[in-house]
């Protein structure tokens, strides 16, 4: 029987050629889609932990996430057929006035890898757009990203817009270079994450998954 550890390793090291062919092999060998997904998620978790410990950096995370995404594209049809449902839907975007997306993309990819359905609204997203997307997709989690000090007030405006709609069961997680836990507390966000890997733990914690 095929050993899914190789798939985990291929995801972790960002070897997309190997990761995609191993995913296909696993499907051909009639392994359950859930077990294949689990093997991928372990790979992303391990690289995420290394990222948190400052042992790997943005390039390593991006190539792992790319391997994961390409493998997911192969796995997804079988996964859907098997009745798999994501744990929850999350909306993510960089706030209005800010066009930086590396951090946001990393969190988005990490969330996708942790069994969340992620709606990525891109950059320069207005508070209204966030609110509309939450309603449309019945999202339970919102991720707000900012790189610039000057766009931090947009985070506050977005949090206020979401709260004023009384979307009470939506949790708001913020992050980005200038953001801190005390800023999160100040603007009434539900959580703050210092890096992309921690954003997975924070998301699961806020959603009561783990």
């Amino acid at each position: 029987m095929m050993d899914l550890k190789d798939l985990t390793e291929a995801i972790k090291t960002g070897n997309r050629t190997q990761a995609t062919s191993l995913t296909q092999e696993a499907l051909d060998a009639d392994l359950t889609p859930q077990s294949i997904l689990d093997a991928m998620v372990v790979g992303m978790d391990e690289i995420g932990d290394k990222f948190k410990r400052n042992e790997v950096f943005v390039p390593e995370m991006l190539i792992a996430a790319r391997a994961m995404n390409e493998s997911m594209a192969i796995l997804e049809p079988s996964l859907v057929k098997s009745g798999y449902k994501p744990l929850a839907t999350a909306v993510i975007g960089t706030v209005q006035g800010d066009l930086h997306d590396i951090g946001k993309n990393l969190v988005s990819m990490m969330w996708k890898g942790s069994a969340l359905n992620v709606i990525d609204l891109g950059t320069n997203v207005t508070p209204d757009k966030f609110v509309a997307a939450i309603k449309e997709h019945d999202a339970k989690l919102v991720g707000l990203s900012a790189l610039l000090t000057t766009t931090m007030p947009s985070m506050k405006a977005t949090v206020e817009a979401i709260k004023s709609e009384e979307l009470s069961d939506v949790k708001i997680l913020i992050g980005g270079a200038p953001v801190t836990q005390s800023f999160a507390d100040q603007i009434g966000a539900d959580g703050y994450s210092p890096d992309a890997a921690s954003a997975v733990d924070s998301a699961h914690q806020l959603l009561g998954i783990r």
Partner: protein
Amino acid sequence: MTGKEILMCALRGEATPRPAWLPYVGVHGGKLVDAPADKYLQSSDLIVKGLLRANELYRPDGLPIMFDLQMEAEVLGCQLKWAEKTPPAVVTHPMSLMEGDGKTLADLPEFCVTKGRFPIAFEALDRVKQEIGEDVALYSLLTGPFTLALHLLGNDIFMNMYDNPQSVLDVMDFCADIGCQVAKSYIEHGADVVAVVDPMTSQISSEHFDEFVTPYVNRIFDCIASTKAMSSMFVCGDATRNLEVMAALHCNNIAIDEQIPLDKIRDLVLPANKSFGGNLKLTTVLLMGDEEDAKLNAIECIDSAGDQSFVLAPGCDLPYDVKPENLSAVATMVHDEYQRDVARNTINSKQSDSFDDIVLPDYQNEDAVIIDVVTLDSEGCAPCQYMFKAALDARTRLGDKVKIVLNEHKITTREGVGMMVKLQVPNLPSICIDGQCKFASITPDTALIVEEIVNAARKKQEVES
């Protein structure tokens, strides 16, 4: 010694009589002249005005002409999105396959320093040099090769570092050539220091830094070293893991942001005969804090850095809306040793003590007019001595006409700091009369104090009758 000389001393690794001070006035210059960032960064007139205003307000030893890491990218065909309070952002990456047209280096517009906004930067430099160049060191900033390569390649650069490293090295080579051209032109126009600003290097490992960054930034630093200008490497962002490799670069100075302890970078760069700069907190202190926060943060930086090879500077480009009074407060800490001592004594105590046990008298119901002179110590500091003597003279002049109680509160004691807090004294030394701070910092004429005492006595009588 001029401010410029102090800063150049620090850059050369020498001890300085006071901290060298380099506020990174980029878009913040626009705020000082009521111009939005987009207009400011496209007008040499506004830049010159902004910098001259900053020079008056902040008494710096050095100033950057522009802080805009998009100028090279703009010439190379990256589209910019302009904003009112930030430098422009690069929104298209022409060499990216994922996000752009996948152009090659040969497809890019030819780079030349006569294009884009470089002529604006040169004109501003020429004019500011003429106005204040004798006293203030002028910094010209250029986009570091890794950050410029990221502008060209977008996120592809990170993938290509694995998939096709040679292609990234080729782009780095190209960007380093541009860096050399830009550096030489700035130096020809009179820049005293050229800083290579490469914030995106904070995103990669030290192995990648060695492979993809070191040879290319060193080429630029070697170009600068062949002239009389000095060089600096700025990395905004958490560069902790790359400090060792940065300390080995061929530059004169390493500037870091608030995420890195100053004593840590100091211990790494001093043995490598380099100077270092940083790292006032941009957001929590300079933007959102008050003058006291700014003073405390400045003192923290100054005390942890020591008096050798150090340039006090913000962690990165000053946000547009930084409060000018906060930067003026930093300038006070830089220029006035006495105020540094005052701040050290007061701020620390004030932050950790609410002084609940120190109760002010019920001034209006006291028989005497109470004069509280708050000082560092009238025996040890000249301004305090004159302030206290002025109060004494006023009492002598009034003789028996008014009943007066005169107290000195030295902030070298807890009681003194407590009184300073309770009396809400803004500066030292100060004279308070019946609980009201009447004179701060500058010693008044005795007649003025007499007048205030007489007014206070009259008020008491009015209350009684």
